[in-house]
């Protein structure tokens, strides 16, 4: 069994491809169909392109805050490829690639960071919960989703993301323990990107691995090379099978690195050395996946150039559209507090409209 073999206390990290995308553990190489492999790669490239552009837009003052994902693509796309459509994705906030893979549109994802709640209203059939800002609290949502799936005896799991920093939160503990108690079909991915804003993981977490936190809950845990899409895929696929069989939740630590700043308001040069970043750039997940695909004759340099061009254009067009349609109407900020406006809110809205009228201000921003 994978999770026995990679018991976190043994100190071994699951890796299937090396830094260059060469298979180093062929016993474990998962059989993934061509279509899925290409979807994985294309999502990663789209995520990266959108990420880099978002940083530019932000510098131009056209986008608000943004939390980049560069370097963490495999930790997100590997897991998503191992899921089924009916599975639920419960987000923290740095899972741009996972969202795209799971059906959130690029436009929605951008719209959110543009500052419009409509960007969190994903399409009806898309089983993704909105970005979750209060660190740790999403774990508990995932347990509830998973409880319902289990109660209804459905072939569904909930997968939930959290950062290395987030594991220190009380809600992480309560949620993991709760999920363990009822053997819920839940998979937790810790994106250990080595930092919580300016705070290095090793400075505030004494445990040698984050995967070993599984032991506290009596569940399986595994440390995985988070920049290896195949390893992430395999870990999640195995965890999913176990979850569906009733073996309960799994804790997966994806060892990765945040190449960019925490958000666009952050300056990482204040707290880390460039050399550290350079070391991690060598482990770029996109490069690895590309080499792997080329090695398998599923991809070529020419196609790659084309893809990059195409996606760059897509990103520019999409963002332009967001800018053109991303304003918020007055009613929108009132309409969703309750199913129906309460008398109180109705009064407040009317008061405000009256004020706007009295002052001759157009009813808009």
């Amino acid at each position, binding site marked *: 069994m994978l999770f026995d073999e990679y018991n976190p206390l043994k100190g071994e990290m699951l890796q299937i491809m090396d830094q260059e995308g060469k298979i180093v553990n062929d016993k474990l190489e998962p059989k993934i169909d061509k279509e899925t492999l290409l979807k994985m790669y294309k999502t990663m490239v789209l995520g990266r392109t959108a990420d880099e552009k978002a940083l530019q837009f932000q510098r131009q003052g056209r986008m608000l805050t943004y939390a980049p994902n560069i370097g963490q693509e495999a930790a997100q796309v590997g897991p998503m490829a191992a899921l089924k459509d009916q599975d639920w994705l419960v987000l923290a906030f740095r899972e741009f690639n996972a969202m795209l893979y799971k059906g959130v549109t690029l436009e929605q994802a951008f719209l959110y960071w543009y500052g419009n709640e409509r960007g969190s*209203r994903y399409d009806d059939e898309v089983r993704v919960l909105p970005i979750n800002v209060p660190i740790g609290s999403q774990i508990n949502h995932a347990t509830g989703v998973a409880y319902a799936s289990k109660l209804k005896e459905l072939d569904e799991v909930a997968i939930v993301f959290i950062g290395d920093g987030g594991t220190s939160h009380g809600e992480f503990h309560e949620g993991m323990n709760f999920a363990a108690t009822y053997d819920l079909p839940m998979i937790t991915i810790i994106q250990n990107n080595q930092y919580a804003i300016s705070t290095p993981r090793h400075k505030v977490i004494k445990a040698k691995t984050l995967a070993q936190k599984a032991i506290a809950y009596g569940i399986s845990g595994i440390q995985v090379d988070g920049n290896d899409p195949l390893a992430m895929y395999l870990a999640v696929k195995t965890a999913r099978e176990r979850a569906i069989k009733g073996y309960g939740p799994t804790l997966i630590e994806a060892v990765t690195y945040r190449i960019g700043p925490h958000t666009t308001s952050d300056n990482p040069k204040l707290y880390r050395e460039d050399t550290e970043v350079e070391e991690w750039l060598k482990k770029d997940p996109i490069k690895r996946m590309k080499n792997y695909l080329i090695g398998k004759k599923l991809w070529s340099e020419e196609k790659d150039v084309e893809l990059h061009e195409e996606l760059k254009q897509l990103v520019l067009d999409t963002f332009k559209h967001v800018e053109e349609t991303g304003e918020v109407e007055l009613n929108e900020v009132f309409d969703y507090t309750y199913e129906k406006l309460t008398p109180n809110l109705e009064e407040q809205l009317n008061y405000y409209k009256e004020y706007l009228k009295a002052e001759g201000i157009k009813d808009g921003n």
Partner: protein
Amino acid sequence: MATKTILQSINEALDQMMEQDPSVVVYGEDVGFEGGVFRTTAGLQKKYGEKRVFDTPISEAAIVGSAVGMSINGMKPIVEMQFSGFSLPAYNQIVTHVARFRNRSRGKYHLPLVIRMPYGGGVKALEHHSESLETLYAHIPGLKLVIPSTPYDAKGLLIAAINDPDPVIFMEPKRIYRAFKQEVPDEIYEVPIGKARMVKKGKDLTIIAWGALVREVEKALELKPEIDAEVIDLRTISPIDFETIIASVKKTGRVLIVHEAVKSFGPAAELIAIINEKAFVYLEAAPRRLTGFDITVPLPKGEPYFIITPEQIAYEMQKLVDFKA
């Protein structure tokens, strides 16, 4: 129809709603096997099984947070906080998620869940078992806050809360769980959320109360038969039933608000502000509030100083009718 206590009414509402709707689940600390420390959920696990009625770890944030997730995945969770004082570890979940999911997702997800919690003093309990935390929930946009004061309302309001598409905090005045019985219909029925109850018509002044204090107000009326008070049981603390209150104050011109929550920044302040906004010119006296002092609810030996008595209410009534501007 039979006479029932508040406790029995709550239990019956839960039972009937579970029976009717398989998506209802009931859980919390000691809620399952034992049926709750107050026995409000007694018998439910036996009837509906361990999957729909269950005991949880001592993890209030997980209880509420999981209810958020369950609601999103099609369930109607009714969770219990063992005492309202122990809802505080879940406060982050309640404020940042329960109250906000509909807005955050622009209506894609909504949370038809109910969070039940016994509240209030007067039962000689340990620290943190006696507080009245209405303000903490009423101040949060996206929540509704309901408090019954009778067995009839307890059943009808709880059913309405379960059927409500918005999340409802349901505070139960534990002091009167078993205090008295009332005829309560055996069928399912709703008492509408957002509507106050006119307990007694009157013309000299308006008294607004809720929960266990409604009975204390009624006792105070007997101490002051010469004052013809109009008594309103607010029932829903948020959203407030403006209409009933304002109509009454316009008639009486004098208003006393009685609550056990501490005074400063408490619920009475909001009622006074609303009355000022909507009925200022009708006021014949400064509105008064009789509330808990701004202190921690004392342990039992000191608690009598904190608990509001019919005598105090009567004293306040007199002050109000005596007021001359």
